[in-house]
């Protein structure tokens, strides 16, 4: 077991250049031949923020102070997670030609899609933080230091999911379509668009409590919106979730990996 893990890590290290090339390809290649190029990566989450702001403030009326900050602080991490799931599903079947014709550690493909999502997230989040700073909303610099740690936990958590789903998609293509629908619904049972309080009924609260993503999003909220360090309890739960997700994900992936090339 230890020996296998060591071999796996050593091989991944050897393929670091491939990882970098794939990330560069993902970032440069996808929107090549478009007018605004890289900016398309940011258009998606920003337009979502704008739409929800419009809908929520005009239809439901303003209920949350500085709603846009609340929305942004949760929406971008959510987008990191959902894009990791969605593009993760396609990371193996979308590179079928490569997988069928050459040997390399297959999980590099998954990591590279996650990494490009992470880079997009980082850039957009820096913009958000800058805006928050300028807005005079006020926050704690100490809380901000915890941010990279929380981002790392969310990334590891997402990677676990992406690994499992990417491998499952090779065997059952329907998974990719299912994931699209599930993520669409998922956002509504996560405290991103609304705040988490007990006024919405016990049922929803229960759902929110068992939704693992709630704990991550709440961490982001407390750092950026509330300007305080996240609860130690939340961090602990997130750490456990991230570790469990990754271990399960990589195990499933390694188990299914051997049958990839004949099923593509």
């Amino acid at each position: 077991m230890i020996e296998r893990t060591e071999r796996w890590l050593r091989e991944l290290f050897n393929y670091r250049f491939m990882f970098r090339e794939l990330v560069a390809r993902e970032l440069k290649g996808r929107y090549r031949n478009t007018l605004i190029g890289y900016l398309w990566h940011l258009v998606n989450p920003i337009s979502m923020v704008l739409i929800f702001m419009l809908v929520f403030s005009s239809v439901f009326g303003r209920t949350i102070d500085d709603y846009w900050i609340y929305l942004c602080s949760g929406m971008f991490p959510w987008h990191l997670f959902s894009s990791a799931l969605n593009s993760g599903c396609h990371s193996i079947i979308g590179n079928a030609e490569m997988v069928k014709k050459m040997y390399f550690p297959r999980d590099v493909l998954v990591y590279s899609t996650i990494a490009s999502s992470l880079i997009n997230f980082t850039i957009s989040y820096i913009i958000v933080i800058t805006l928050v700073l300028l807005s005079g909303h006020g926050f704690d610099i100490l809380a901000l230091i915890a941010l990279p740690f929380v981002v790392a936990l969310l990334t590891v958590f997402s990677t676990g999911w992406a690994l499992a789903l990417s491998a499952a998609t090779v065997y059952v293509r329907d998974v990719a379509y299912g994931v699209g629908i599930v993520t669409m619904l998922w956002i509504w049972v996560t405290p991103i668009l609304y705040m988490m309080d007990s006024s919405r009924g016990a049922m929803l609260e229960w759902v929110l409590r068992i939704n693992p993503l709630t704990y991550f999003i709440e961490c982001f909220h407390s750092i950026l919106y509330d300007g305080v360090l996240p609860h130690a309890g939340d961090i602990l739960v997130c750490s456990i979730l991230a570790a469990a997700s990754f271990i399960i994900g990589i195990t499933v992936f390694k188990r299914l990996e051997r049958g990839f090339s004949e099923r593509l």
Partner: protein
Amino acid sequence: MKEGNAVEVRNVTKRFNTECLVAGPGSPNGRRRRVSRKRTVLEGIDLEISKGETFGLVGRNGSGKSTLLKILSSVMYPDSGEVEVSGKVASVLELGMGFHRDLSGRENIRIKGSMYGFSEKEMDGMMDEIISYSGLEEQIDDPVRIYSSGMHARLAFAVAVNVKCDVIIVDEILSVGDAGFRVKCSNSFREMKKRGMTIILASHSKDIINSMCDRVAWIDGGRVRDIGSGESVCYRYEKSLTDCFDTVAEMAETGDPAAQNRLGEMYRDGSGVAEDPGEAVRWFRKAADRGLPEAQLNLADMMYYGTGTEEDRAGAETWYRLSADAGNPDAQIRLAETGNPEPGKDREKIMERLRGLAEGGCLRAQASYADCLFRGIGVKQDRREAMRWFSRAAEAGSVSSQFQLGLNYRDGLGTEKNGELAEIWLSKAAGNHHMRAKIELANMFLKGMAAERDLPKALRWFKDAATSGDAKSFYQTAVMYRDGMGTESDPEESRRWFDMFADQAYLRVQNNLADILFRMDPSDRERQEAADIHAGAAGRGSIASAYQLGIIYRDGLGRPRDGREAERWLGLAASRGHQGAMIDLGNMYLKGNGVDKDEVKAAGMFTMASDTGNHIGTALLGTMYMEGLGFEKDPVKARELFLRSSEFGNREALKNLKRV
């Protein structure tokens, strides 16, 4: 893994799951159900490939070659069994190669290299080399989507060749790309080989496999059917393609004229399928329509000898003409016969007579009649009957029939293949100084045709053929010593044979030159020159030149007449099996022409010629017995000799036969 091995495959089995929707029982539009089938692609494959070896895979489409290569490159995993590969592997599997269409060639090289697990630094170091190797300097910064398929292959191959790895696996890359690229590929394979890399390649091209591979495995139906040297495996593989009814039928359906003709022959001869003249004609006609001369001949034969109606005969003539015009010698013969105003009668009369003579025991008639039957000249082709006559003539001592008989046993023409009989008869012909018999025997053992491969025997026969003057056999012998085939590898001995080969080739040129000089009504100086050339060649072992030089001294052509010299050179040529020299020297002794008259010596020469199957020698020996020269007078013996010689059509013997 054993030391020195680059690849070990042990009992590897691979099955594919194929799922498809199948119409349920009842109407085809009924409910369809999902059916999962397991298809076995590889079964119990065992291979060992040593370091530095170039290993080839041949086999039909779908035989499992590509799957095996994928398993070796770790792209796929076997269901059971083990695969071990030592060192870094680079593979070029199929086309397309997973390039990113919108990125440039240069960027794709980087990605590709990264996929082999190289670092950026290593890749930058190799970049220029790869680009210049690919020959795509001008397009390297264009997106790959505008590349042609040949350019894709170049790029993929350039990367694989130039990255530093220990094992390279290539699947059918050489069939794409132009001739220039192919040459480049071959060169780099050679280069890689020199560097000690292990190369594993699959190809449908026999030339490529033959010229590059140390060993070849023939994969058939997911198993290793045969493994060995390129030449022998390819030979058997190709042979199976032309012997297997299903394969031939399949190829014929796709419209390959050669296969159609072969299929027609199978239907005609009932080999591998029930005899069916109708089908035979149908397939011959298809191939004939596409202009294959052999098929035109076969079709015409079927029409001519088949029904025998006026209409068909006229039709046959048209096909004979077409085939003859395309240069088929047998068709030309048939056409000449059918062109006869009374073709049937005359031809039949001649054949009848030939047959009569053959039955009467005339060797030459037997051999000739067998040949006619075998090739269908003037009589309906009947290879089995031909074999019967070849056997008779061969047993009675006809060397050419011995050779033909052995050849037919070897190749299974008109008979079952029989390696033992093939060897017996070819050896007999070879023992009678039949040069081609020696060469064919050597080939038979080299390639394992009809018999087990036997390299020591092949080597022995090649050496035999070489020492009796066959230049190609010198070369083959040298190669066998070099590669340690049938003997210990012996570079020095190999060198010696290569030198002799070069010598032989040069001697032949000399011989030709001298011949030309003699033929064109030479001046004295030219004669002298020709004589000098022969003298030089003879001194270096050319038997033909030794003979010529003997004649030159005997007749004083370009050299002063010199009986002693003539005797010396003719004797040398005779001792090396030159029959002309035996007879000429015998005659010199007999007549005291330039040497002391010596009937015993003359008789010795004629005996030698006669023993090696020369009918002139036999006739002359008969005369010696008849006249009591060198021997006691012995009319019985003389008669016997004349009889034997006359059977080969010797007129002198025939005349003397009446006198005895």
